[in-house]
């Protein structure tokens, strides 16, 4: 979806950590983070890059660091 494509490709491991580490549904994580399920879905699908505040909240809820959750794509990492 070109209109929503971020300038930099940001990879995320949110879905795996949400399911495997925290055992949460999208709705549960959304409720804990104070956002809608659509926002969680969009982040997991790489359609939306969250603000720093939301990234920090998600990391705290899942008990990981922001770097565990998000990273730049390989092409961006060395810039």
């Amino acid at each position: 979806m070109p209109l929503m494509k971020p300038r930099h490709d940001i990879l995320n491991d949110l879905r795996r950590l949400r399911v495997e580490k925290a055992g949460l549904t999208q709705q549960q994580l959304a409720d804990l983070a104070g956002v809608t399920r659509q926002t969680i879905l969009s982040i997991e699908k790489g359609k939306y890059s969250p603000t720093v505040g939301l990234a920090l909240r998600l990391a705290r809820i899942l008990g990981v660091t922001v770097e565990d959750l998000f990273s730049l794509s390989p092409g961006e990492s060395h810039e």
Partner: protein
Amino acid sequence: MNEPIRNRRLSPVTLIAAVLVTAGFALTAVSWGFLVLAAVGAFGPGILRELGWVRDKDELQMQAAYRAGYHAYLAGGLVAMLLIARVRSSAADLSLSDELGTAILSVMWFTWLISSLHAYWGGYRTAQRILIIFGSVWLLFNILGNLQGGVTALLMQSLLAVPFFALAWLARRWPRPAGVLLLGTAAFCGYFFHLYEVFGADPFSRGRIEVAVLFMGPLLACGLMLLADRDSAGDGVEGGLQA
């Protein structure tokens, strides 16, 4: 930390706004003064959110709202400038009547609506649902318009809605061909309903611009979304992976 956002489809503010807009437009039959109600419903919630007095959207929804607003500004501004240039440079005596304002508003609102739906559902799902709504509205008007014309006329007229439902079905399976067909259908509608006359001597005659937006707009928008979106199948709140 932000206030928790309740996961409702529509917040109370949005519902109240929808009621005000609907009532405002309906009551214009009584007096055009009631258009103020529609204006309050259409723009009030956004103003309250910007003032920070209402917090019913999360950051993704606010970003979608900002994007839709920007798209509406681009489309509305462009159309406004083109129309003003057309009117002021015309040798004919075209008046800057309220038709100009209505035309610009219709383009602005249509763009805002499509952009908002696109952000919420993604391109493919938005196109499918717009087509179903378009076909349903067409069917409803045909039924209402032919209630006294006999069963045969009713059935024949209702068949006109079938292509839209067929295109919605096609868009789900083969989005690209469906996109091409939609652009073709939009061109056919433009020819069939003489909507190309919007570029003629009097673009405001009989609400041509509004009719063009209402008839060709959804078809063009759906066609372009199906052709332009590369990976939006499964987007949107209902396409989620519920673990």
